[in-house]
């Protein structure tokens, strides 16, 4: 079987990719996708830890289910807000949305 460390590495890479998307993408939807990617990186981690070390406990499985639903709710609400953002500002470019600063 693949060593556990590799899977951790992959999940960390996924997480980092999500974070990079968050920082570099100017599109609000893309930033949100970055966040989802980060959440799923954590999920991968959970499942791997369960599979490798603690196959008798169901904690991780439950946690993953929980996260999937919560992520869906978050995405739904997030998209609704971003839609409203487009209506107000006429753009979803995050760099152009800075009425407040200082």
């Amino acid at each position, binding site marked *: 079987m693949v060593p556990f460390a590799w899977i951790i590495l992959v999940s960390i890479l996924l997480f980092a990719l999500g974070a990079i998307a968050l920082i570099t993408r100017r599109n609000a939807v893309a*930033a949100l996708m970055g966040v989802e990617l980060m959440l799923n990186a954590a999920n991968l981690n959970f499942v791997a830890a369960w599979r490798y070390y603690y196959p008798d406990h169901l904690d991780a499985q439950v946690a993953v289910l929980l996260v999937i639903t919560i992520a869906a709710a978050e995405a739904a609400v997030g998209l609704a807000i971003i839609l409203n953002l487009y209506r107000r500002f006429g753009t979803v470019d995050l760099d152009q949305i800075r009425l407040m600063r*200082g």
Partner: protein
Amino acid sequence: MFSLLWLAPTLPLAGFLILATVGARLPRRVNTALGVGSVGLAALVSLLLAAAWAAAPPGAYTQTLWTWLHVGTFAPGITFYLDPLALVMLLVVTGVGFLIHVYAAWYMQDDPSIRRFFAYMNLFVAMMVVLVLADNLPLLYLGWEGVGLCSYLLIGFWYREPGNVKAAMKAFLITRIGDTALIIGLFLLFAQLGTVQIQALLAAAPGLTPAAATWAAALLLGGAVGKSAQLPLQTWLPDAMAGPTPVSALIHAATMVTAGVYLIARMHGIFTQAPGVMTAVAVIGAVTMLMAACSALAQRDLKRVLAYSTMSQVGMMFMALGVGAWTAAIFHFMTHAFFKALLFLGAGVVIHALGGEQDVTKMGGLRKTLPGVYWALLIGALSLAGFPFVTAGFYSKDAILYLSWTAARGAPWLWALGWFTAFLTAVYAFRMIFLVFHGPAVQAHPVRDARVSVPLGILAVLSVIGGFVLLPRVLGGFAPFAAFLRPVLPEPPQRDGGIFEVVLLAASAVASLGGIGVAYLLFARRRTTSPDAGLARFWRQGWGFDALYDRLVVHPYLWLAQECRHDVVDAFYHGLADVCLMLNGWLSALQNGRVRWYAGALVAGAVLLLALLVWR
């Protein structure tokens, strides 16, 4: 009888509350009566307490109203503690405070916001009384902060002038620096000794380690230095003249600036454990008194002369504290309260009579128009200058000068600085008198009002007779004041006096008379008003004898005037403020509104913490 003690702070506080809440619906006369009356009643209570004390001294009296909170050994109560030291302070604060209030009823009679004025003044007195009577550190700190807050409100009383607001802010913030030190010191004492009762602290003080004692004393000193406007936190005091004159009188004579002196005297048990800090107290006091006296010489604003004079006199008290002459310091505090209140109130009348003019060089010859005030101010100036044998100031100042040499901690050079300061004091006191009341007369409105003459009269009498409660040994050694305070404040160990005492007494008298003489030469005969004018005039006339004199006196005087006009220390605080604002600018620039940037910071912060984790 002593159970009346709680009324002393409560009456002014009640005055404040009534004025602040329902005062708006009451007529002005009622407001004034409330403001003056509450402090008057408090003064009456203090007198009753004093009478009761004289009849049967209880040693000390404690009154607990309620326990504020109780956490482990930390149990401060709203508890008042009365002992001889507190009684002296209480009498001065409420007594002089009352006279100032009476005067203020006249001074502020046309001000539209007299209600606000008396509300603040009453709160000020209440807080000062709380500070004086506090039985524990938190209560003391409450009074301390309250006094600071009230001074802020009163200095900025005429807030429509932006300059006044700035002065108020400066006073508040600079004293805050001291307060910060103070609260850390109080916490340190609590952490070390496990109690907040002041008496218990003093009893336990010998158990402190030298390091802890030094730190605690140094931090307390920091607080005292801020409130009492000593080096290096002195710069707020002259600017604090922005407030109405009764406020200046209250801050300078009876309350705020002497709080530091009281604090050190009250906590003397801690200070005696820290000899290094004691020396620091003496040196700070000595340097401040000299610097401030020089500055007072150079001022043209009448109130600023008095402000620097206060700083100088408080410096003298600090020097006394530093050599362990606790009683002498409190003695000088008392006489100073009398004559400085007198001087400020008199100066207020002068300024009023001249329609707001504060520049002494534009005054003169007021002796004729304001004879009563002339005599009052003259007595005040004599007392300030320490005119020998008849004024209170002479005895209190001599007590300090004498002990600054002969006390075990004293030193000749401290005495020398004190002596020279006493000389300068006489010079600037009479410079003021001569410039204001002598010479060519200027136009002024006479002032006749009982609310002025009665307080001035009482204070003038006190400025004279107030000194006869502690006479030097060579003059009979009649010293009920020292005997009264002895249970609280020990006498410093000192060398034997004898003939030496007579010499020092004579030297004090010489300083005073000499100073007055020099002032006469410089300001009464020739009216050396401003540096350049005096200089020009001097060379034009070219009197041979005076040339030498000028080289010795006028030149150093001009140089000092140049140096002292701007406080060097001020620059430091401005610099500190600038640094803070610069940092503020940088940090604000980071808040650029870009969400991607914020996300980057979030991730960077996380990476930073993780890196810390790996590398440790």
